[in-house]
């Protein structure tokens, strides 16, 4: 169906319908939990869920960009670890102002992303393999830089980023809102965003119609690396320590959020709102299962069933309208 740059506009109303399917699933889970435990639907619990979701959501936003262009990024979990460790090493009290660890951490992630983008665009190696490689490199570097041990004793200013509150609302939530808005604007309102859909919808056609493929791909991987670094820095700040083992299998959670949110793995479709809802759904379920004290063994099964359920519901909605 998608043959030109304008496809994404045609996909517009369809996407919003898909989103409603997910929204219904999300509301159903929330209502179900509110009825079973009185502790679910409170302001305090809402802030807890949003805080817990934020790290994964930031990763998922980055991964959404990449998947829309028809790529994939498996290295985000490792980038969380390596940029967290790097940031932590510059965040000890009375050393550098707080901007230094943040900038150095972000640069680490951007460098990883740019490297992914460079290899993907200048070779025929599939992104799956390239980012599998950087995933291992990143984990190794995190272990080397930290000598396998957590990097602790971080300054209060740094710990405020992921642990502090402004106007009674946790910093992580403010950052989540700001980054979400920024990503949504990039995707919907900019030429770059339009190109992303075009590349993912039909790479050959987009090349023929003059889309700068290389630049677009470099941009999405670099963006994804940067967002992973931001997650890493915030996670480090939240747990007040840089952990070389942080972010293990985070890439799967992020990809899951994007896919539940309606991003198609074959590229060309997806929205930031969908991804945010996907991340929220995962967060609400895991919070709810903890509140209900469901055994850890069952939690995994329940989570899997709900993930499949959400996607099936979503696809039913899609075929009905198509």
């Amino acid at each position, binding site marked *: 169906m998608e043959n030109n740059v304008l496809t994404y506009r045609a996909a517009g109303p369809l996407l919003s319908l898909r989103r409603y399917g997910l929204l219904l699933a999300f509301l159903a889970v929330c209502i179900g939990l509110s009825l079973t*435990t009185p*502790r679910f639907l*409170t302001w*305090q*619990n809402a802030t*807890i869920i949003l*805080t*817990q979701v934020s*790290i994964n959501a930031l990763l998922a936003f980055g991964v959404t960009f990449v998947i829309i262009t028809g790529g994939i990024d498996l290295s985000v979990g490792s980038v969380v670890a390596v940029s967290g460790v790097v940031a932590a090493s510059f965040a000890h009290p009375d050393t550098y102002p707080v901007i230094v660890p943040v900038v150095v951490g972000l640069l680490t992630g951007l460098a990883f992303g740019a490297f992914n983008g460079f290899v993907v665009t200048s070779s025929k190696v599939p992104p799956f393999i390239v980012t599998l490689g950087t995933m291992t490199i990143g984990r190794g570097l995190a*272990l080397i830089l930290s000598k*396998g*041990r*957590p990097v*602790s004793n971080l300054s209060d200013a740094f710990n405020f980023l992921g*642990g502090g509150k402004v106007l009674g609302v946790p910093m992580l939530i403010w950052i989540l809102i700001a980054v979400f808005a920024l990503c949504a604007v990039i995707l919907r309102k900019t030429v770059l965003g339009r190109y992303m859909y075009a590349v993912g919808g039909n790479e050959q056609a987009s090349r023929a119609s003059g889309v700068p493929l290389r630049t677009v791909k470099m941009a999405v991987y670099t963006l994804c690396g940067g967002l992973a670094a931001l997650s890493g820095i915030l*996670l480090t700040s*939240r*747990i*007040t*320590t840089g*952990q*070389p*083992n*942080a972010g*293990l299998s985070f890439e799967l959670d992020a990809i899951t959020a994007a896919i539940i949110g309606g991003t198609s793995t074959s590229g060309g479709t997806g929205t930031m709102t969908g991804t945010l809802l996907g991340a929220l759904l995962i967060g609400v379920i*895991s*919070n709810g299962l*903890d*509140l209900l*004290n469901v*055994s*850890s*063994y069952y*939690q995994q099964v329940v989570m899997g069933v709900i993930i499949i359920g959400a996607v099936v519901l979503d696809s039913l909605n899609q075929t009905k309208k198509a």
Partner: protein
Amino acid sequence: MKKHVLLAAFAAFCLAGCQSSEKGGAQKLVIGATMLSMQNEFIVNVNDAMAKKAEAEGVELITVDAERSALKQVEQVESFIAQHVDAILLNPCEVEASSPAVAKALAAHIPIINVNSETSTQPTAFVGSDDAESARIAMKFIADKLGGKGNILMMQGYMGQAAQLKREQGAKEILKQYPGLTLLASQTGEWDRAKALSLMENWIQSYGSKIQAVFCQNDEMGMGAVKALTDAGLKNKVIVVSIDAIPDAIQAVKNGTLDATVFQNASEQGAKAVETAIKAIKKQAFDKQTLIPFQLVTKQNADKLPQ
């Protein structure tokens, strides 16, 4: 697979070559050590102690990392056998799956010493600690602090791993002895600080001021629980105890945020393992089982730990 075997055989051949050429000079004993995971801080500490002891005794130590794979570990022991090392130190990945490694070494008449955890096949000797005991010590501390009555939460390690199962078993034994203690909930924090922080936040939401104590099966999770309780302004009302005595946890005990941790003596385990191996090689008398005792770390003794 075949390639791997060939590669391993080739590597073993090369190493054996080096070794035999060296044997022309002084007869230096060689001990091979295969470690569960060199990404784990505790295991790294055990291995450091082994290396230190080996150097002091004038023994050559070859360390390889099994990266949590029992299959890899068995292959590593096979190549140690091919190299004709004088003894093997095995820090098992799994109780069952690492057992063939022990059987193979014994069949080749090479002494094999299990370090830190067990296999179902009996090795030449065992040096380590009883994981269940560490949990008993931690739970006993909580029971005493609460006067034998109160509500407890337990944060588990990665479900199904030997350490998680043993620590759960130890904790449950103490819970049985104190009928006044109620286990409100137990969930996994997967040994991870960030996961533990989220889980504790959810628990606070769920049980609030009912919580009187939290037992975490390792320090990483203990640190996460402390963070969540501190943020919620509940830390001074809730006792948190964890296991391992990693540097962060010892610091937290000194600061009074973590109430206690349990010290597992990595350096003692590593040194005793090498010592036992040398005795076994020289056919001197050695203990079939050396259990290094745990030590409860509280504010009173946090400054005096052996490093």
